[in-house]
């Protein structure tokens, strides 16, 4: 797993995708920080964090689009799948590499909190809680993106497909609101990524939300492993 992880990390920076992702993430969060906090002289960062959710929808598919699709297209999967490593190690290596790049972006938001701390009081627990929430929702999105990437050998399809899936996960709660049947609406609301993430930005650190994102991540990684396993049998 270590070998795959370090190769993936270096490939993010060899192929510019890492730089593009980080630049876009820093720029987006910087703009949001300026609009929501600096412009109003507010120490409340929850606005910025809740809007960052939309940035994830667009940027994470770009981060994950090439993970498995590119290997399939370049036939390098033959090298990975015939090496003495398990499929789990292979997918986990790819996942953690993408997650590391993503986490680098998220850590940038802490710099904004430090900037605020020079001028006012920062609610550190709230900020840290939200950062954890952002990392968790990002991990789940990355797992979704890798799953989509495993289904195709075209990076563009992987990116667009990943975006569509994440959009669907975001819209679940809005769809739930217009469904008249109560129990379906209830289930959909419970599955909403956005509602659960917004709880973090409100300063609510609910363990069930943490478990939800962790299990979503695990499920999508598991599905990716099944996709790779199935390909051998087809």
């Amino acid at each position, binding site marked *: 797993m270590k070998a795959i992880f370090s*190769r993936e990390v270096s490939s993010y920076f*060899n*192929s510019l995708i890492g730089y593009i992702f980080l630049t876009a993430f820093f720029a987006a969060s910087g703009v949001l920080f300026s609009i929501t906090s600096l412009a109003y002289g507010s120490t409340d960062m929850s606005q910025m964090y809740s809007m960052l959710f939309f940035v994830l929808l667009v940027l994470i598919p770009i981060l994950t689009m090439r993970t498995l699709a590119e290997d399939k297209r*370049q*036939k390098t999967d*033959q090298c990975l799948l015939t090496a*003495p490593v398990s499929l789990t190690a292979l997918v986990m290596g790819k996942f953690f590499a993408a997650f590391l790049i993503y986490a680098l972006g998220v850590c940038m938001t802490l710099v904004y909190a430090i900037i605020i701390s020079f001028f006012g009081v920062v609610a550190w627990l709230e900020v840290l809680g939200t950062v954890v929430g952002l990392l968790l929702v990002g991990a789940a999105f990355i797992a979704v993106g890798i799953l989509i990437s495993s289904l195709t050998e075209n990076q563009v399809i992987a990116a667009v497909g990943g975006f569509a899936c994440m959009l669907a996960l975001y819209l679940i709660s809005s769809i739930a609101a217009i469904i008249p049947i109560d129990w379906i609406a209830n289930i959909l609301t419970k599955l909403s990524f956005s509602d659960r993430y917004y709880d973090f930005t409100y300063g609510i650190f609910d363990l069930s939300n943490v478990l939800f994102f962790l299990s979503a991540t695990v499920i999508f990684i598991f599905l990716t492993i099944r996709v790779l396993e199935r390909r*051998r049998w*087809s």
Partner: protein
Amino acid sequence: MIEVKNLVKCYGDKRAVDNISFKANDGEILGFLGPNGAGKSTTMNILTGYLSSTSGKALINGIDILEDPIGAKKQIGYLPEFPPLYMDMTVREYLYFIYDLKGCKYPRNTHLKEICELVKITDVYDRIIKNLSKGYRQRVGLAQALVGNPNVLILDEPTVGLDPKQIIEIRTLIKKLGKNHTVILSSHILSEVQAVCDRIVVINKGKIVADDTADNLSRTLTADHKLIARIDGPREEVIKIIQTIPGVVNVLADMQREKGVWEYNIEAVEGTDIRRDLFKRLASRNWYLVGLRSSELSLEDIFLKLTIGENVSEFLNSKAEDLDESEDDE
């Protein structure tokens, strides 16, 4: 040691590999010969655990690739049909990655250096793979298979895309490796497997049509009775004269190679040698024999011979009977 038992692989309705069994012993180079689409790559992909078989077993040094994939894969070095290279890495970075991926225990730098010298890629060690020529990429692919010094090597068309000098180098290298490794290599070129392999398995449409030592196989597959001759003389008459040689089945004037010199494809009954007769008859008429060689069997001929062997010999027997009669007449 590699053992394959009753291997079947279906893609939907199509049987890409149809119940094949063979064995490659330690220190043996096994050639896998077949036309494109015969199932060579599929078989190799199953052996290396990239694909799963529909039924049947593949054992690497006694370890079933399906039951203990990681244990079996540790024993294998695999060069697929398209070398699995990361184009954006340098050769050094790539080999370091493969070294880590395989979890090697040898001292890294000396081990990789040895391999690079063996496949002669030391001079491109720090170049980006994207910028390398096909021949170099093929050799980096081979280097990748050798990392970790696995005792089973599976090479899918290892000499494709190399120039003649490199082909000879790689063949020598494979022969050298064959002394202490089990090697399976595939090819669609008969002369290549003949040059390198101890044993040859011929496969066509997913089925094994021959499995024999290289010597035995080339004995049955040589074509001394099929000649290509260049003769300086009038075409129509030359054909007539050649046809009167006992044993000749067919004569075809191919094309004019030099002024007045035509090339003829002469086919005789198997087992007859008409070369001396041919020379005598041409000399008696003052026509010059300027070139003579036996034609090599094409892969199609081999499959014809191996797959419908009985029919061919029936056909040839009937021709032989004609020959006996004509001799009686004389």
